[in-house]
């Protein structure tokens, strides 16, 4: 498994749990789940690039 695949799976599972537990209605659960997933993956990509540039 690649590092990125691990990040995506981690983000997917955590976002599902966050969405279901932190919101009341199915629509809001779905939207919050998507929001968490995007934040997880985007922050991982941004931090990865930052570490890459710092290491150079």
């Amino acid at each position, binding site marked *: 498994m690649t590092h990125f695949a691990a990040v995506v799976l*981690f983000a997917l*599972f955590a976002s599902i*749990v966050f969405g279901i*537990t932190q919101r009341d209605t199915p629509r809001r659960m779905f939207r919050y789940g998507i929001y968490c997933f995007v934040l997880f993956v985007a922050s991982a990509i941004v931090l990865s690039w930052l570490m890459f540039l710092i290491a150079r």
Partner: protein
Amino acid sequence: MATEENKNATAGQGFVYLPLIAVWLVPGAGHFLLRKWGRGALLSASILGMFTLGIVMQGKLYANAHDILDILGLAGDLGNGLLFVVSRVLGLGADQVQVTTADYGTRFIVVAGLLNVIAAVDAHNLRTGRKA
């Protein structure tokens, strides 16, 4: 108004901590008890999936606590309930982290336990009527 009163009356009956304990022992079980089939299935699939991936990646299952980080890891692992106990009994997971993916696997197992604790609190809130 009448529906709200009925909900409050139902919320006070029986052992209110049953869904909380059920979810801790088996991910999703408390939501199934409360007839929240969809939520229970998704929570169960997510937590079981994360725990299974952690084991497949040869993640470490904490057995004892020698320092503060081990204590925190053990606390997270214990959130998995029966999954942790069964895995320990079957000798799954690694004793030592030797490859990078095993380090990821260890985190997956700990986070699965912490997510299960969040799910257990959610089931308790549903049971007490604090959440719809």
